[in-house]
């Protein structure tokens, strides 16, 4: 039943032309000149699904681009049309909040390769008329950013006031600053890295293998076969979810508490609350995410190494950058630990760039950037405020 419901959701929402029924906006770009991808191929006709909040001022100087993370989407604030839950950055984005919708014009687009309306594996290959599926080209973080750039050009915004994002969103922020330094006034990469580490790749590989080990994955052709690798995707999500938290956060939330029982059952039911929680995380994820997309997006993250194209010198990626940076890390984030943020900061300092860096004390792990963390919010807001003053934005942003 659940599976059928999930497939119905996916069929209604994300696949093929169904994506047009999602709320928000959607444009078809790169129709004349195709989008060049890092893997060597091109995409002609790229759909970008996006949402905006607030109003663009007359000078078009108050636009903030939010880049979403691996399993995020462009439903940043407000009710999510698929899950019915709050947007993923409800804590940060809204009237009077850190990213103030009364003051800034906020844009978030579903990434290239995402499964919420932008061109991706669920789109039709214009040449064959079939859904792309596994034949979709393997994309990179750089490709995602070049697709976002098409949208920003389409919106006729000369320079973004800020590009912000956490985790994979932070990687996109770094790409923006590297590829289009004149298009970005301020950049806020949060809880992220300039290079996916061996440990990061290893965790992703576990997730991918879980999906591919599910017989319902059907070598990637599950759509054609009318199946869905929900077990594999759920396990992938469960494993990944552990890396987003921290030992103290798990202990505080669950400890060794038992789930609806007084004693262990000497079996393999979810005796412990933490097991039940993870199972729920896995199964609810399956309802809103596509398994092949998960493979492709995690691959894009694994390929991310900003210094690689600069002979391993990260500082060259930001040479003479005019961008004002705020780098933030969280003490308990073991997925992208503080020292990875420090490497970014050191590279920026090597060019005497304008950079701020704060390590926020939190025991909530990597996901702290999504949560109610007052110090994080205060620093973030103050930085944007200072940038607004340097940019000459008035209080009301107009």
């Amino acid at each position, binding site marked *: 039943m659940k599976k059928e419901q999930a497939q119905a959701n996916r069929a209604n929402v994300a696949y093929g032309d169904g994506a047009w029924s999602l709320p928000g906006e959607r444009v078809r770009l790169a129709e004349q000149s195709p989008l060049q991808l890092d893997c060597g191929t091109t995409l002609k006709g790229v759909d970008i699904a996006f949402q905006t909040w607030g109003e663009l001022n007359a000078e078009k100087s108050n636009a903030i681009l939010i880049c979403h993370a691996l399993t995020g989407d462009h439903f940043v604030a407000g009710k999510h049309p698929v899950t019915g839950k709050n947007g993923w950055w409800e804590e940060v984005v809204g009237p009077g909040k850190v990213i103030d919708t009364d003051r800034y014009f906020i844009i978030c687009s579903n990434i290239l390769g995402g499964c919420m309306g932008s061109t991706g594996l669920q789109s039709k290959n214009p040449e064959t008329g079939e859904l792309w599926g596994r034949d979709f080209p393997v994309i990179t973080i750089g490709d995602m950013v070049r697709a976002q750039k098409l949208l920003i050009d389409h919106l006729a915004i000369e320079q973004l006031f800020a590009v912000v994002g956490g985790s994979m969103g932070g990687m996109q922020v770094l790409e923006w600053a590297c590829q289009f330094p004149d298009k970005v006034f301020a950049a806020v990469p949060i809880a992220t890295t300039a290079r996916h580490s061996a440990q990061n790749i290893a965790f992703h590989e576990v997730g991918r293998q879980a999906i591919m080990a599910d017989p319902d994955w059907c070598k990637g052709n599950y759509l054609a076969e009318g199946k869905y690798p929900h077990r594999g995707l759920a396990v992938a999500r469960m494993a990944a979810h552990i890396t987003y938290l921290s030992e103290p956060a798990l202990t505080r939330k669950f400890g060794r508490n038992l789930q609806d029982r007084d004693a262990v059952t000497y079996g393999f039911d979810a005796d412990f609350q933490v097991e039940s929680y993870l199972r729920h995380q896995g199964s609810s994820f399956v309802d809103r995410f596509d398994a092949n997309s998960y493979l492709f997006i995690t691959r894009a993250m694994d390929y991310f190494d900003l210094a690689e194209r600069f002979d391993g010198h990260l500082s060259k990626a930001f040479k003479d950058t005019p961008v*004002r940076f705020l780098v933030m890390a969280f003490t308990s984030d073991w997925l992208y630990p503080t020292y990875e943020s420090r490497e970014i900061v*050191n590279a920026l*300092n090597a060019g*005497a760039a304008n950079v*701020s*860096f704060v*390590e926020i004390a939190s025991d909530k792990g990597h996901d702290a950037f999504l949560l109610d963390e007052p110090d994080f919010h*205060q620093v973030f807001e*103050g930085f944007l405020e*200072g940038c607004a003053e340097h940019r000459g934005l008035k209080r009301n942003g107009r």
Partner: protein
Amino acid sequence: MMNPANPKSIRVDLQLIANMIEPDTRVLDVGCGNGDLLEHLWRTKQVDGRGIEISTQGVQSCVSAGLSVVQGDVEKDLKNYPDDAFDYVILSQTVQAMMDPRGVLEQTMRIGKRAVVSLPNFGYWRLRFYMLINGRMPVSENLPYEWYNTPNIHFCTIRDFVRLTRHMNLTIEQSLFLDEAGSSKTIGNSVSIANWFGEQAVFLLKK
């Protein structure tokens, strides 16, 4: 943010440092605390200012106030900056708290064309008498710590510091001391007088 037309007053020694800095320059404040000096320099002299600060609370208040400040350890992080990246590098009440004051001063002179250094003077007569009479490490209003919890692990006198600048072949372009009335006087060639009567000193150094 405060009103640019009415900059809040800053500590006297910070004002002396600010006076040594030309407008529209690039400045790095090493150990910038809660950012008072950086904010003042931005408001009054339009400097392009940066800071390094080790305390979380200090960095948070700086960045929240719109200042460009990096959380870091001065003794580890200065080496990341390129040569001559700044017109001025400020060490305000910082050198005496370093493990390696000379190393920090060398890095400072490498990344800055000039340095402004302020420090408490351990040769100040009240401190000398405190030790002479009490036989204990001096504790005063300006130096409120006990020996076992002081962050100031490398105290020096004005004469000591002048001597170090000679060893390092640095030029002292300006030097001032602050007496107990809080008025500033030029040190110049009167190192002896300054060393007795200065509670604090400020130096403008050039390579």
